[in-house]
């Protein structure tokens, strides 16, 4: 046994103090006699002015001394020494993939894994350490150290996922901990539906694999999709795949709905380890296709699949040019751009469009609508620019700045060195913008945001530059349109896949509504938002807004469960590449602290003392 806080034995000094106090304080017991007639005359010789008495045998004194000794000893934190053994530094890898939500082990495989890890952590000695890693598509360290309470809370905070389990990366993390001496044991809690573990070489730790799972029978909807029948058309066709992973044939009820309305109900005949592909003609205007089965198996998570019919986002563009052919050709190559053309003299601020293209002019009054602006070869400053004049010809691009999102989009695929320019408009770079390409006589490409709209200014004159004759010109125009009008969100997203939301001009908030109805709000001043919380299967809605003005409303679906997660057959035949970690110094491990026992004993004796003093008297 060892004392963790030996200095607490200082409190044993209270024992002689208690005895001294007892000796100085005479306690007399009351005894009732019939009469003091005979005792009174003995009073003088019977009484004694006691200033002290030797601590005679007294039950209360003995009890109090024992209690004080027990408490002093408990404060010194005695601990039973365990057998000499290496200190345990364990890494617990908990599979949080979708298959771990199977309910063949009640309440679920994942809950069972947590329970086992919790028990393992509770059994660790005081000086052992542990690291708990949740292994999903992205492994996450939930907690580390020797504080059991923190580790147990970290385990409780773990939630299952709907994606895969990147056990290879998790093992790599554990391996690095082992190499740095922070881990000598690795325990994996999984159903074995993991791959790539054999690719992690030379793990210097003992690996213990805890298989969780019994059932292998499962039928799941492994794929659901919808695509336009005709490119750009409004009618879609749907597709679904149902797979039987079991060893026996099965009949499975299936229902398909479009926007909540049933379109098909039937009984699927599935052979053992077979699959069935289904096609659905979706009505015009259909948005959400949902396919649901009811096989009554251990994994209900893959019994539903959803898909959204993609909608091409049509861009309304207004071109104001006196010689529009070049731009018409470039813009006509973009499938989602609906172009209307007018002479520059016919411009009015009231014309509605998502994108305004001005060639050779900058209007004095900008459009009333919040559409973005593409200005090419301005011959006047108008309401936006400070025009300094026109340059001479023979210019080249002297500098490009590819830093930042705008530059990376606008200059993607552009060989600036190949551009030969004629006359350009010389402008001051406005406060709202910055130049991402310069010539000898000033900026060539200026980008920025002003008045709630994005603006791109190409200062070169189309007639004077060689660019329009090159293939790079349509690319440049497409890049401009892409930056001025962000890409739509994909209709279907895999579980745990990250998304990037590009805000429209004038948007300061992006709101995401999850399948459960919970909403999340992200503030933006034009920068993109990376969204990673796609661990729930189902339909998400994304709103871009500024106050009450809704700039856009889009949807996407997360799912279905990855096919490999529907395969819930437990797998115990994994190969790990371990190496001998080498000689590890042995030291006695501190086992169980026994102060609670001592404190309980002291409390019991306190009760005995109370009983002796009050009841027995």
């Amino acid at each position, binding site marked *: 046994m060892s004392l963790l806080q030996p200095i607490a034995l200082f409190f044993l000094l209270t024992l002689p103090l208690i005895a001294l106090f007892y000796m100085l304080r*005479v*306690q*007399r*017991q*009351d*005894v*009732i*006699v*019939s*009469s*003091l*007639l*005979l*005792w*009174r*005359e*003995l*009073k003088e*010789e*019977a*009484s*004694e002015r*006691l200033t002290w*008495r030797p601590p005679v045998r007294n039950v209360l004194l003995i009890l109090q001394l024992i209690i004080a000794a027990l408490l002093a000893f408990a404060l010194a934190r005695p601990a039973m020494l365990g057998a000499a053994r290496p200190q345990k530094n364990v890494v617990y890898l908990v599979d949080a993939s979708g298959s771990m939500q199977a309910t063949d082990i009640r309440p679920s495989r994942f809950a069972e894994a947590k329970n086992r890890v919790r028990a393992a952590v509770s059994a660790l000695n005081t000086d052992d350490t542990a690291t708990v890693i949740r292994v999903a598509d992205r492994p996450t360290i939930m907690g580390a150290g020797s504080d059991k309470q923190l580790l147990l809370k970290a385990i409780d905070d773990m939630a299952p996922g709907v994606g895969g389990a990147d056990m290879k990366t998790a093992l790599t993390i554990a391996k690095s901990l082992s190499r740095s001496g922070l881990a000598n044991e690795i325990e994996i809690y999984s159903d074995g539906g993991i791959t790539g573990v054999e690719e992690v070489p030379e793990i210097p730790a003992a690996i213990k694999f805890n298989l969780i799972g019994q059932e292998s029978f499962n039928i799941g909807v492994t794929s659901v999709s919808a695509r336009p029948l005709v490119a750009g058309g409004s009618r879609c066709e749907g597709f679904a795949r149902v797979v039987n992973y079991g060893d026996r044939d099965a009949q499975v009820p299936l229902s398909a709905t479009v926007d909540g309305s049933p379109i098909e109900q039937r009984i699927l005949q599935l052979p053992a380890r077979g699959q069935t592909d289904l096609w659905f003609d979706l009505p015009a205007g259909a948005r959400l296709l949902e396919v649901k089965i009811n096989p009554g198996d251990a994994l209900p998570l893959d019994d539903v699949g959803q898909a959204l019919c993609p909608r091409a986002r049509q861009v309304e563009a207004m071109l104001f040019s006196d010689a529009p052919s070049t731009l018409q050709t470039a813009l006509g190559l973009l499938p989602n751009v609906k172009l209307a053309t007018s002479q520059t003299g016919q411009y009015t601020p009231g014309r509605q469009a998502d994108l305004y293209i001005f060639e050779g002019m900058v209007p004095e009054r900008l459009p009333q609508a919040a559409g973005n602006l593409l200005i090419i070869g301005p011959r006047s400053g108008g309401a936006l620019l400070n025009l300094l004049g026109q340059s001479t010809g023979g210019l080249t691009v002297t500098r490009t700045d590819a830093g930042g999102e705008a530059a990376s989009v606008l200059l993607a695929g552009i060989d600036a060195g190949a551009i030969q320019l004629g006359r350009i408009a010389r402008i001051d770079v406005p406060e709202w913008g910055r130049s991402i390409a310069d010539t000898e006589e000033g900026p060539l490409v200026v980008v920025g945001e002003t008045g709630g709209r994005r603006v791109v200014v190409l200062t070169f004159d189309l007639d004077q530059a060689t660019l329009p004759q090159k293939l790079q010109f349509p690319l440049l125009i497409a890049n401009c349109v892409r930056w001025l009008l962000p890409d739509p969100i994909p209709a279907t997203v895999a579980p745990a896949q990250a998304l990037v939301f590009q805000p429209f001009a004038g948007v300061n908030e992006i709101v995401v509504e999850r399948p459960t109805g919970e909403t999340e709000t992200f503030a933006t001043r034009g920068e993109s938002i990376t969204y990673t919380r796609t661990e729930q299967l189902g339909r998400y809605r994304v709103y871009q807004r500024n106050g009450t003005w809704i700039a856009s409303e889009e949807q996407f679906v997360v799912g279905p469960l990855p096919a490999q997660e529907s395969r819930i057959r437990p797998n115990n035949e994994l190969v790990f590449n371990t190496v001998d970690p080498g000689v590890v110094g042995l030291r006695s491990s501190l086992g169980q602290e026994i102060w609670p026992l001592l404190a309980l004993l002291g409390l019991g004796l306190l009760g005995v003392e109370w009983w002796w003093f009050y009841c027995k008297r």
Partner: protein
Amino acid sequence: MVWGRITRRAPERRSSAFDEEFIRKLERLALVTRRTGGWLAGDHATRRQGSSLEFADHRNYAQGDDFRRVDWHVYGRLDELFLRLTEAKEAVTLHVLLDTSRSMDWGEPNKLGYARRIAAALAYVALASSDRVTVARLGTTVEQFMAPVQGKAHALGVLRFLDEPGNAAQTDLNAALDRYAMSRRGHGIAVLISDLLSPGGIEAGLRRLAGRGFDVLVLHVLAPGELTPELEGYLRLVDQETGETIEINPTGTVLAAYRRRLDDWLTDVQAICRRVSANYVQFETSMPFEDAFLHLLHRRRVLA
């Protein structure tokens, strides 16, 4: 009422000290007493004329005497008229004076309970012998008393009176005996049953009682805890009557001194009794009650 079958009643306040077994004991004691000639040393005889059948003497007939008392057998022999004289029996009153102060309600066995039994036995035996019995409870004065009764029919009432709890807080036997003596005529036997732990002493009261013509008998009841106290440790003795306390450390020396003091006190008490011509008998409550009563009977015969 038929003796030997007692009608039981539910206890009103507390369990009675006098149960059926005790009553049977009293019957046996009464029988023994009568066979031995009565505990009061025989019936008191008087030469006064009485109407009993016991022949006492003859005397010459005088004019006016009752002709029915003429002894005609003597006339037949002597041709002279003589009156036949008989002995007149005088009923004795037994005064049972029971100390019911709080000092009596102490001890293991309890002195008051023991004293009640002694008093009950005395009263019962006397009533069985056709003597009159009166009972009084003493404290600092005569706390309560009952009118004299005669005959066994009143035995239950006497027992009931003795069974009632006393309410005397403290003891002043001198005052109590003095009061009792002055309120009664001096006939009979006064039996004082007490622990005699009266701070003012007992001599004046006993002297008054004897002076009033009572034949005084003192039954001194003490508990074993008073005769040989078993005390140890650092104690605070509390007087049960007054609440007064003293602190003592009952070492062997102190206890030996107490026993000496006790012996001296007992000697003084006996001397007082002799001075006032009172009989003295000491009882320890550990002695079985029947043995105690027979011992009393024996002592009484010796003294008589």
